[in-house]
């Protein structure tokens, strides 16, 4: 049984490479992959530029963002002991989104050049941290999981109201369109800048969550039992919250809000790790990376007047899986 599960995880990992190749081959222009690879990074040839400067960073970003979202979802569900939790519940996404909106709005009038690829993501990460900080402060000292959720819902509602207000008073249709597209999430036109900006935050987040893996394991018994197993005090919840804010905040900052990955992916792989909340972190990162990469391949190959937004695609892929989970749950299998 355990061997089968490890095989399945290995299979997922092995699938990443062909998916990456498929992503590199997908696009409006068909390129000679072999030649482009051979020409190398510095080549000025058209195919090589498309491969090295457009498709490779985009595919890697899909992997990175998907991994962050999957891992963040697993951590969130583990900490709140609730399979319906997702990182957005902590205000990470709306905090980042609000910061981004404010920049998209007033950035131009403040004379901040939006050409600065790193400014928007950096502000969005700041927004994510602020939102999580507010949730933490509102929930208060030694807050239980349910109070944390409540605080998250409250902060989220407030941020949503602010975003609605911002949309309401959008200075121009152009700004409004930009905001809506940002909220739908996209990996289009992202390059090495965004990748290199998100990478350290996501790596730091992963490290924090790695340090908290045994806390998440102990928490499967409940907060009192976790405390008696040595996971006492504010240090551990802070580790998890910091890890989620850093990794998911950075993911949202560079790719916009992409829903459903954080909610669905942990569900899908939980049986593969025998429900262990510690190993679930890595399995979810792996599956999230694969899911988002596949979704982005779909986006790129979708022919239409408008570019399909990846947030819509993940929901389209994710929701049927959820239906299936519920139906199999009805047959008496554990969710």
């Amino acid at each position: 049984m355990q061997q089968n599960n490890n095989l399945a995880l290995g299979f997922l990992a092995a699938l990443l490479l062909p998916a990456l190749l498929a992503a590199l081959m997908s696009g409006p222009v068909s390129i000679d992959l072999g030649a482009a690879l051979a020409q190398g990074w510095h080549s000025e040839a058209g195919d090589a530029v498309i491969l090295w400067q457009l498709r490779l960073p985009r595919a890697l970003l899909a992997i990175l963002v998907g991994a962050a979202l999957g891992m963040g979802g697993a951590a969130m569900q583990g900490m709140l002991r609730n399979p319906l939790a997702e990182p957005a519940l902590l205000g990470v996404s709306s905090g980042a989104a609000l910061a981004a909106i404010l920049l998209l709005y007033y950035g131009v009038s403040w004379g901040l050049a939006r050409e600065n690829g790193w400014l928007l993501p950096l502000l969005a990460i700041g927004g994510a941290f602020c939102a999580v900080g507010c949730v933490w402060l509102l929930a208060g000292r030694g807050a239980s999981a349910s109070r944390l959720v409540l605080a998250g819902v409250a902060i989220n509602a407030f941020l949503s109201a602010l975003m609605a207000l911002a949309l309401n008073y959008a200075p121009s249709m152009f700004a409004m369109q930009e905001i809506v597209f940002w909220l739908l999430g996209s990996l289009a036109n992202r390059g090495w800048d965004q990748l290199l900006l998100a990478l350290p935050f996501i790596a730091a987040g992963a490290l924090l969550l790695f340090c908290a893996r045994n806390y998440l394991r102990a928490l499967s018994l409940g907060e009192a039992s976790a405390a008696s197993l040595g996971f006492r005090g504010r240090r551990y919840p802070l580790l998890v919250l910091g890890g989620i804010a850093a990794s998911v905040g950075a993911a949202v900052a560079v790719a916009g809000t992409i829903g459903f990955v954080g909610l669905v992916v942990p569900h899908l792989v939980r049986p593969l790790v025998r429900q262990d909340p510690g190993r679930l972190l890595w399995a979810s990162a792996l599956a999230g990376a694969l899911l988002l990469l596949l979704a982005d391949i779909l986006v790129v190959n979708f022919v239409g007047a408008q570019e399909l937004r990846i947030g819509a695609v993940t929901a389209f892929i994710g929701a049927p899986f959820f239906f299936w989970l519920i139906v199999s749950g009805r047959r008496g299998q554990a969710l």
Partner: protein
Amino acid sequence: MPVSCRDLSLERRGRLVLHEVNCAFSPGELTAVVGPNGAGKSSLLETLAGVLAPAAGRVELDGRDAAVIPAAERARLCAYLPQSESPAWSLDVADLVALGLLPWGRPADRAQRVSAALERVDALHLANRAVTRLSGGELRRVQLARLLVGRAPLLIADEPTAALDIRHQLQLMHTFRRQADAGKTVLLALHDLSLAARFCDRILLLHGGRPIARGAPQDVFTPALIGDVYGVSCEFRWRDGVAEFVPLDLL
């Protein structure tokens, strides 16, 4: 490991639930904490286990102030099972039991220890079952295996026999008796006064957050004391060291 509390007070939701409790528990002793609902049994056990921090006074483990012992070390000194513990995920039984070893990292003899602990609570046959597919009593036994799997010299369990059938109640009390005989300090909150009288060396009777009596079962379990604390008339029939507690009526 000797355990004691000095002038221990605990506040919960602005209400004082333990009032300057002073007591000591010795290694090799099996102590039952008894008292009516709301007497402070669980609060006392949770404070001793380090889950709750006292408002005043202190807990001493092996003569050291427990508040200055790092959480990870304290977890190796004391294993605790709360009154109700519901697993959040559908872990396999063996994996849930292994969580009791978290304070020790990943010991090499993990699998053997888990099997031995499950054996002690008569649940080895459940090892590969998901915890969501256990009955209430089976789950309780598995949780007790989680308590017993480690090497902590202090064992604290809050109403371990609740939800268990009579056979497993007896088996469990024998297990705790053996743990105490092997030199551990064992504290159990119990409602079954017959079991407490039969298996425990010491009884700590709590009422309104204060210890009312402490001593051997014969000394604490008197109709007068029980009448005062529980408000019932009762009889204790002692036969060959086995006590039978018979509640008669409300006072």
